[in-house]
């Protein structure tokens, strides 16, 4: 068995544009919706219902300009767009699977300025249905 994967430069595309150079964290994680199966014999028991909610999160350091994050993504706020993420910017493969999904882009922050600082914020959105995972 190989060592754990060390992320260097993931691929994160929002509406067809790669924002890896603006990102400090990319996450696509599931949460099983649990059903209450608690009884006298099984107090506190919860069983997965089969429903899963996938949440995509991306932490961005903001930037301004014709092709930069705020200008480009504020134009697609509250719309459903295509997302593509991979552990690495290289081609899809068994060691670099790809996730494709749609999600509604939330309204994004404009600025949060401190002297000499950058503006970092996290966008969180639930995917529209299950992501599609491919290795070819």
């Amino acid at each position: 068995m190989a060592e754990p994967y060390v992320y260097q430069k993931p691929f994160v595309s929002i509406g067809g544009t790669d924002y890896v150079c603006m990102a400090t964290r990319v996450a696509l994680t599931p949460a099983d919706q649990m059903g209450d199966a608690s009884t006298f014999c099984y107090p506190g028991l919860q069983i997965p219902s089969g429903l899963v909610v996938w949440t995509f999160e991306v932490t961005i350091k903001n930037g301004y300009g014709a092709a930069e994050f705020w200008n480009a993504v504020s134009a697609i706020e509250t719309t459903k767009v295509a997302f593509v993420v991979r552990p690495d910017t290289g081609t899809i493969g068994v060691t670099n699977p790809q996730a494709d999904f749609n999600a509604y882009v939330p309204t994004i922050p404009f600025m949060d300025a401190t002297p000499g600082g950058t503006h970092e914020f996290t966008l969180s959105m639930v995917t529209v249905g299950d992501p599609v995972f491919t290795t070819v």
Partner: protein
Amino acid sequence: MATRPKKFFAAQDFGLGRRRIRAGDELSEFDAVHVSSVRPDLVTDDGPKAAANKKEEPADG
């Protein structure tokens, strides 16, 4: 004459959430529409051709 609803199949192996879909598997109408919305290349109406893309399962051991 009543027409049969069109059938859709997975064009290659892929994952759909926590489900594993194999090439040639028939997709429900909902799954076919949903997968087409993100990866139209993964959905086909040619079942036999799609089934030929099925990869061999690795042997347990």
